[in-house]
């Protein structure tokens, strides 16, 4: 459907469109079954950043409060990109792995299922 409007046209570009990031991308990532972290986290990064560098240098330090974080092995994780199964190469860049503006990444860590048997 579309907005009912009075003027001749009602068309707008997205406020958060890619070209407003000066070549960087804005994307989101979530660790499944670790609900201590209330929400998926938002990032702005250059797309040529290596995926492993992003995970080790940005994601892990930001998410240090959970007792599972220190044991987390990204290479052993199961991954999804925009809710589809995904097999990233951690040594390649975000862009080479298909991570683009407004991508949504999820991962699950086998053997690390959060606290209290409830994914906390």
């Amino acid at each position: 459907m579309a907005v009912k409007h009075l003027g001749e046209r009602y068309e707008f570009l997205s406020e958060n469109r890619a070209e407003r990031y000066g070549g960087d991308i804005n994307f989101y990532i979530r660790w499944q079954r670790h609900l201590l972290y209330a929400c998926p986290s938002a990032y702005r990064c250059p797309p040529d950043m290596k995926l492993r560098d992003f995970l080790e240098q940005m994601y892990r330090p930001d998410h240090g409060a959970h007792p599972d974080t220190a044991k987390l092995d990204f290479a052993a994780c199961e991954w999804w990109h925009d809710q589809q199964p995904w097999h990233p190469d951690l040594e390649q860049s975000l862009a080479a792995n298909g991570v683009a503006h407004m991508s949504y990444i999820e991962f699950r860590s086998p053997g690390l299922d959060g606290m209290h048997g409830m994914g906390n």
Partner: protein
Amino acid sequence: MAQGKKLGLKERYALLTRGLDWETTYQPMDKVFPYDKYEGIRIKDWDAWADPFRLTMDAYWKYQAEKERKLYAILDAFQQNNGQLNISDGRYLNAVKLWLQGITPLEYAAHRGFAHVGRGFRGAGARIACQMQSIDELRHAQTQLHAFSHYNKYFNGFHGFAHMRDRAWYLSIPKSFFEDALSAGPFEFVTSISFAFEYVLTNLLFMPFVSGAAYNGDMATTTFGFSAQSDESRHMTLGLEVVKFTLEQHEDNVPIVQAWLDKWFWRGYRLLGLVGTMMDYMLPKKVMSWKEAWEIYWEENGVALFHDLGRYGIRLPKHHEVTVKEKHRLTHEMWPTLYQYGNALSLHTWVPDDAELDWLSEKYGELFDRMYRPRLLFLRELEQRGERYYNNRLPMVCQVCQIPIFYTEPDDPTTQCVRIVEAADTKHHCCSDGCADIFRREPEKYVQALIPPQQVYRGEAGGARDIFEYAKWLHLEPGADTSEYRGSPDHRNWEAWQAAHKSTAADAA
């Protein structure tokens, strides 16, 4: 001059709403009232509009002036007697901060909205009702500011509500709710605000806040609440009248109104999560749980109302069943969200004490005990180790309700819920099927939303690069306005004042 017979209320109302109106001739009526047709609502007879209160302007001024006199006498007494020392606990003020920051600006927005639609309808009865409500809403904004200003002398976090309204991530939730309505046509505005919010959901806003204020010894808030109550009953009547009038005028209006009810029930419900969280976590003396309130005010009263509207062809709003599934967990998911992003909040957060955890266990039962209580106790453990938990990485936010996406799947409280929606040039994220439906119905509208974390990353939040610089841009003083309650200046002051208050009382005895 001959003395005429004094007119009755009904006659005076008829003269005001019918006799003073006319059909324009120099300009076509469609040019004078350009907004009341494009939404597709068909009105055959504007004179069928009936206002059960039949309030005229002279009576309106008289009633309101009386209420003002009483209200300000009580506020004066509250201030002169240091009423702030008689509240239940210093933590209580955080509920008042949330009202000031989140709700008072909505009263002002409602004033603007009703002033606009009060000009937009070609029916004079509807215009008069909207005009009075517009003045009411301005009065509510003013009386709230006056009542709360006393607390601003003694507690932090009250100072920057107007500055923060257009900037703070958690205040974009109520702001976007109202601006969605303000930027719609006049019939959608009154359906959304007067009916869906003021009629269907208002008990969930006023009851917990005003009863909560009374329970917690806050006579200032209680008094403006009661002063607003007679206005609210008039607003609720307007809400019901709007919907019945619209539905009775033409059968083509039914699907349009239904789509608005689907949308605004969901948006209102999402907004009320903040109120529920206040009830369950922020009031030191609890009134009732969010779950109990939802059962009484929605599952019993709200559902019965929708069944009554069944004779017009209206059904229950879409996704209503999700709200019932979420009632067991909504507030237990939202409070830890506020808690962890506390470095950019103009209010304090804390882990409930044992008595409060027991109350939550009693109200919420087994799922709370298995899942949320251990989560809260883990947060307490971190705090006791001197590692009070903050999440300083900005969250993903829903493109429609603008709430950070913390919700879980309706049938699985261990899996977070995200919906991806696409518009022409960009992907967006929603917190639920309810918000995703709203997006897909009017994508051109919601792609324009200013989402605070994205605004920060684009460098449009005063150049802030992280949550601390962002808080500075909101004019927040770290630790004084923001973050943990325990050990904050508010907490320390409260303890010192209580000690002094007790020793003065003991000396006097």
